[in-house]
């Protein structure tokens, strides 16, 4: 299966190891992975802030860059949700672009979603082993693409991984893109709530798949002196497969 990776700007810059893991795991599972280097950003910051002209221009670029591929996989639920929820609506008055943009919506998947719903992977068959306790942060934008307990199900297929459920798992960590910058105090109060729930699990590792959430929560953990390690599920799987 041919798959194009949409790395997203935050993962590219802050969490390249996640991207590397995604590539290695997909290749291991028999996918042929491409990385179109012309990709930049899905336009979510512009769209969410009401700058819809700028967002549309970036969406067009995305539609063009990924046009040749059958599947697009991204390690970010947030960017996947942007493409899936809004790319159609964006071009209500431009039917030609609407068609191209929704074609991208239809073939874009968040990494874990792709593993479970497209590749139908059972990690138990791949002998994935990763020893340790970990909790998991459910990022909000997974709601937008209809993902609920997929990641937890995948985690439970990993031998040695002890999953510690997080209280208030569905509560937003307070990142919200520019929200964290516009209302730092509200955002800060929100993320400290998340950190205290993480602390309560006593798990040394937090599995967090969205770069934005990870930046926010890990930054708050560090400020609050809660010593935990952050990894994406892709990294855990890659490590568990002996690929990293």
């Amino acid at each position: 299966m041919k798959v194009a990776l949409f790395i997203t700007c935050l993962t590219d810059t802050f969490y390249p190891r996640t991207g590397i893991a995604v590539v290695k795991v997909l290749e291991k599972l028999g996918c042929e992975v491409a990385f179109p280097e012309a990709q930049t950003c899905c336009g979510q910051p512009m769209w969410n802030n009401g700058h819809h002209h700028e967002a549309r221009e970036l969406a067009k670029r995305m539609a063009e860059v990924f046009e040749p591929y059958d599947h697009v996989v991204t390690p970010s639920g947030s960017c996947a949700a942007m493409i899936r929820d809004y790319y159609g609506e964006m071009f209500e008055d431009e039917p030609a672009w609407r068609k191209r943009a929704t074609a991208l919506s239809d073939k874009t998947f968040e990494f874990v979603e792709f593993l479970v719903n497209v590749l139908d992977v059972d990690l138990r068959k791949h002998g994935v082993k990763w020893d340790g306790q970990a909790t998991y942060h459910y990022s909000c934008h997974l709601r937008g693409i209809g993902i609920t307990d997929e990641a937890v199900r995948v985690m439970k297929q990993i031998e040695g991984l002890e999953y510690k459920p997080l209280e208030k798992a569905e509560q937003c960590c307070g990142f919200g893109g520019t929200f964290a910058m516009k209302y730092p105090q509200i955002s800060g109060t929100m993320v400290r709530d998340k950190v205290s729930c993480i602390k309560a699990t006593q798990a040394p590792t937090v599995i967090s798949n969205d770069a934005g959430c990870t930046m926010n929560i890990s930054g708050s953990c560090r400020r609050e002196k809660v010593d935990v390690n952050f990894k994406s599920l892709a990294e855990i799987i890659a490590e568990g497969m002996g690929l990293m």
Partner: protein
Amino acid sequence: MSDTLFPKLPYKLKQRADEATVNIQLQQFVNHATYSKDVARKQAMGGAFGENTDAVRDLAGQIKQHTLDHLDHYLEQFIDNATATGVQVHFARDGEQANQIAVAIAEANKCRLCVKSKSMVTEETHLLPALEAVGCETVETDLGEFILQLDNDAPSHIVTPMIHKDRTAVARAFQRELGAEYTEDAEALAQIARKHLREKYRKADLGISGGNFLVAETGSVVLCTNEGNGRFCTTAPRIHVAFVGIEKLVPRLEHLGVMLKVLARSSTGQPLTCYTHTITGPKREHEHDGPEEVHVVLVDNGRTDVLHEDTREMLRCIRCGACLNSCPVYRKIGGHSYGAVYSGPIGAILTPMLKGLENYTDLPHASSLCGACYEACPVKINIPKYLIQLRRDMVQNHLSGTGDRVTMRLWGESLQHEWSYRIGGWMQKTFARMQAKFGGTLETDDPYASRGWLTWAPGPVKGWTQERDMPTPTAKSFRHWWRKEHGR
């Protein structure tokens, strides 16, 4: 009181919100109460509807949407049918006119004492002072609202108006205003209120209520309450006046049934409110108790502006409060931070529509767009979509500030080209790493995983680092790795 829900315009959210985040009491109560209600909602909806939960929300949303799409038809039906049962229907363009109608009814009947049940519309119109001004003493009877009235405070939640107060506040209010002995026992406090309000019901000659639903087919007004005060206010006094927004219609009783099935479950996790009261006309000739006159005041007060196609969906709202309970921002800043009658996610979209976007530019941005509200909403109002739509309207109407505009324009432009994306990334990286070297820590081993941390940063990142550390970009990007491993 008026200042809390009717602040000086344009309203700026930041001050109240920031105060709320350091108000320990508010953080504890509001956070806890909303979270537990959210859990109760999920259990009640899921427990009742199982895998049909989403489908029943669709159905409820479709019923409301259909009614709004044909609101002229259903309004006329309601007016004719209610009138046929002897209800007097009045029409109020705005809050002031609605209040004038109530005052006229009170004066014509020489009403001296009014008992009032909870109603968001009367909060909108600010009815209470209008009645008091003509010598009609008006008592809030919902326990929460009653306490807020004693404290000269304002409601901060659609369903649980005094969610921001604790039992000591109640005890103090009863001691001070009613001469009651100080007690923090909830049961005892409720009994004090019962005794006091019973006397009011006995003497009241006017009852005011809101209305959760209006049924077009029958001309009925439907009230959902738990305490029973709604039933009392519409049973004991000789005259009952209901203030109801024009969007509260449903076509037929069977549709009412669907709305009732989702309202209480979404609101408090109950199957139905303790008292769901359907009123179809005043007391009939052969009946012994009940009001002799029933008036329905149909209130517009900005609703027809929201009824336009672009925003019509917002009027589906049945005021269950589920979006407030599920909202992580509401949990932290409480209702008063929204500076208007309707708070939380629904308030953040409805208030700018009802009171002018230029007056409430902060509200659409005070959200992390997490989508919990949309998931909770029993009539599926896509609140995040409307938050974004309002943000767009702000940009288009030049309400968003020049700095914001220029930043987004430049940012968007730089992302249009691979070369500028890379330069941007390189600059950001270099700057951040320099910062980290001098101001923070730099942990370097794996170039693709290493983290530096900023503990302070200027400009737009200042707010971020005020609250938490900021990870710096890694030494090498993913792009670099790809080129190295798979590159040409």
